[in-house]
C-alpha cells in the first residue's frame, strides 16, 4: 500500500536507513527518500569509538549502489528545517519542499559540549569526529577525557590501547553508576585503573585553558593536569529544534505511542535516539533497529502491526570487557544475584517482588546475556 508521495525519512543514520531498508523488505513499493544533513554515505556509529586508532572506523549502513538497487533516494548534504505536519510538507535548507504520505523522524542527537566548549575540544558522534579523535590520540602523549559514561569509557579504552596516557574525570563517585549501580560501578573504576588510567571520580574540571598546542586543566580536587587533547562525553541533546512550530508533540524527543506513531499527527513516526516511545527514549543501537523495523511494518502493512519492542539491550566494549546490559535495572538497589567465574566473567540480575527478572548486566558472558533477554521476552520468568 502506498501513495504517490511515499515516505520521507529525515536523518540517514542507523534508525533512518534501517527504516528505509525495512520498508523495501516488507514490500513497500512507493517512493522512499532519506534526507541527511551530512555529506558522507550513511555509516554506523558504534565502531567510531571501538577498534584501533590506526584503523578508520567507517562501516557503511548502505552503499550508493544498494540504495539505487533498492529504489531508496539518498538526499545527502540537505538539512530539514521545517515541518508542517497537517499539510504534510517538509522544507529543506535549500528551500525545496517535499510532500509525503508518511514522514519518519530519525534525527538523533548532538553531543553536548558546554561548559567545556574551548577551542579544539573534541566530542564523538560523527565519522568526522572519529577521524579527528583518532588523529588527536595518535599525536598525543596525554589525553583528558571528561565523562566516564559509555562514550568516555570507550574513548579512554581506545587511547590506552594505543599506549597514550589518559586522565578520566567524572563528578560521579564511580563510572557507569547510573546504569549498573554503585557496587558494580566500583568494578568499572578498577577496570580503568588496571589499564593504567589516572581516574578522577568525584571530581570536576574547574578550569580548562588552551596553552600552546595543549590544555592546562584545573580539577576540583586541586590538581593541575596537562593534556594534549581533551574529549568531552557528557551526554547529548535531541535534534528536534527543527520541529518547532510543526504541530508535533515534542518533549525530550518526539512523543509517540508504543509503535512509534507520533501522537496526534497521522502519517508521522519517529525512530531511534530522537523518539520517545510510550514515555521512554532510548539511546541504543538495537532499539533504533527494532524501532525501524516496527515503523516500516506499520507503514507497509497498517493492518498487521509489528509485535511490541523487545526488552532494551546495549553493549559496550571497554578494554578486555564485553559489557551487555538488558532490561530495567533498579540500580538504587543491589542486584539480587551476582555470579562470577574464571577466566573473568560476571552476570548480575535484578528482580521484582515476585522474583521475576527485570534486567541484568553481564561482562564477558554473552550466553548469559542471551538467557536474560529470553527470560525478559517471556515476561521475566526464569
Amino acid at each position: 500500500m502506498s501513495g504517490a508521495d511515499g515516505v520521507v525519512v529525515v536523518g540517514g543514520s542507523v534508525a533512518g536507513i534501517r527504516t528505509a531498508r525495512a520498508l523495501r523488505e516488507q514490500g513497500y513499493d512507493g517512493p522512499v527518500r532519506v534526507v541527511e544533513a551530512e555529506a558522507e554515505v550513511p555509516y554506523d556509529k558504534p565502531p567510531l569509538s571501538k577498534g584501533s586508532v590506526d584503523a578508520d572506523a567507517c562501516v557503511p549502513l548502505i552503499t550508493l549502489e544498494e540504495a539505487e538497487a533498492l529504489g531508496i533516494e539518498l538526499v545527502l548534504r540537505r538539512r530539514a528545517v521545517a515541518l508542517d505536519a497537517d499539510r504534510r510538507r517538509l522544507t529543506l535548507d535549500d528551500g525545496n519542499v517535499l510532500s509525503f504520505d508518511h514522514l519518519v523522524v530519525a534525527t538523533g542527537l548532538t553531543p553536548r559540549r558546554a561548559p567545556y566548549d574551548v577551542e579544539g575540544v573534541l566530542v564523538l558522534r560523527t565519522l568526522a569526529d572519529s577521524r579527528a579523535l583518532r588523529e588527536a590520540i595518535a599525536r598525543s602523549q596525554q589525553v583528558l577525557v571528561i565523562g566516564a559514561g559509555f562514550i568516555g569509557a570507550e574513548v579512554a579504552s581506545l587511547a590506552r590501547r594505543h599506549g597514550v596516557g589518559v586522565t578520566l574525570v567524572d563528578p560521579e563517585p564511580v563510572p557507569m553508576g547510573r546504569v549498573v549501580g554503585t557496587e558494580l560501578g566500583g568494578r568499572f573504576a578498577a577496570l580503568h585503573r588496571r589499564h593504567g588510567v589516572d581516574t578522577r571520580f568525584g571530581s570536576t574540571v574547574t578550569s580548562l585553558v588552551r596553552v600552546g598546542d595543549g590544555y592546562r586543566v584545573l580539577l576540583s580536587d586541586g590538581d593541575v593536569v596537562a593534556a594534549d587533547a581533551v574529549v568531552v562525553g557528557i551526554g547529548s541533546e535531541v535534534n528536534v529544534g527543527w520541529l518547532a512550530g510543526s504541530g508535533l508533540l515534542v518533549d525530550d524527543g518526539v512523543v509517540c505511542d508504543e509503535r512509534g506513531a507520533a501522537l496526534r499527527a497521522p502519517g508521522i513516526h519517529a525512530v531511534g535516539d530522537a523518539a520517545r516511545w510510550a514515555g521512554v527514549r532510548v539511546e541504543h543501537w538495537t532499539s533504533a533497529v527494532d524501532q525501524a523495523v516496527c515503523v516500516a511494518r506499520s507503514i507497509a502493512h497498517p493492518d498487521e502491526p509489528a509485535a511490541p519492542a523487545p526488552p532494551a539491550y546495549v553493549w559496550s566494549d571497554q578494554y578486555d570487557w564485553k559489557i551487555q546490559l538488558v532490561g530495567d535495572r533498579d540500580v538504587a538497589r543491589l542486584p539480587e544475584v551476582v555470579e562470577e567465574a574464571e577466566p573473568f566473567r560476571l552476570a548480575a540480575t535484578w528482580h521484582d517482588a515476585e522474583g521475576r527478572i527485570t534486567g541484568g548486566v553481564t561482562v564477558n558472558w554473552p550466553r548469559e546475556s542471551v538467557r536474560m533477554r529470553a527470560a525478559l521476552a517471556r515476561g521475566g520468568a526464569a
Partner: protein
Amino acid sequence: MPVLKADLAACQGYANCVVAADDVYDIDDDGVVVLLQATIDEAERTRVETAARSCPVSALWLEDA
C-alpha cells in the same frame, strides 16, 4: 535454497541474532555465533534475514546457492 553464512572472526557476541531467531542462531561459551541450520527454507528468508541484519557488525548473511 538460501545458504546461511557467518564471519566467525567478525562476530563479537552481541547476540541480537539469537534473540531474533533462536532456532537458527545460537552462541557458544566463548560468545561466538553457532549456526543451527546450514540452509534456510525460502519461506523463512525474511525472518532469518531480519535476524542477520540485527547483527551490529554485519557478521551474518544469506547467499543464494
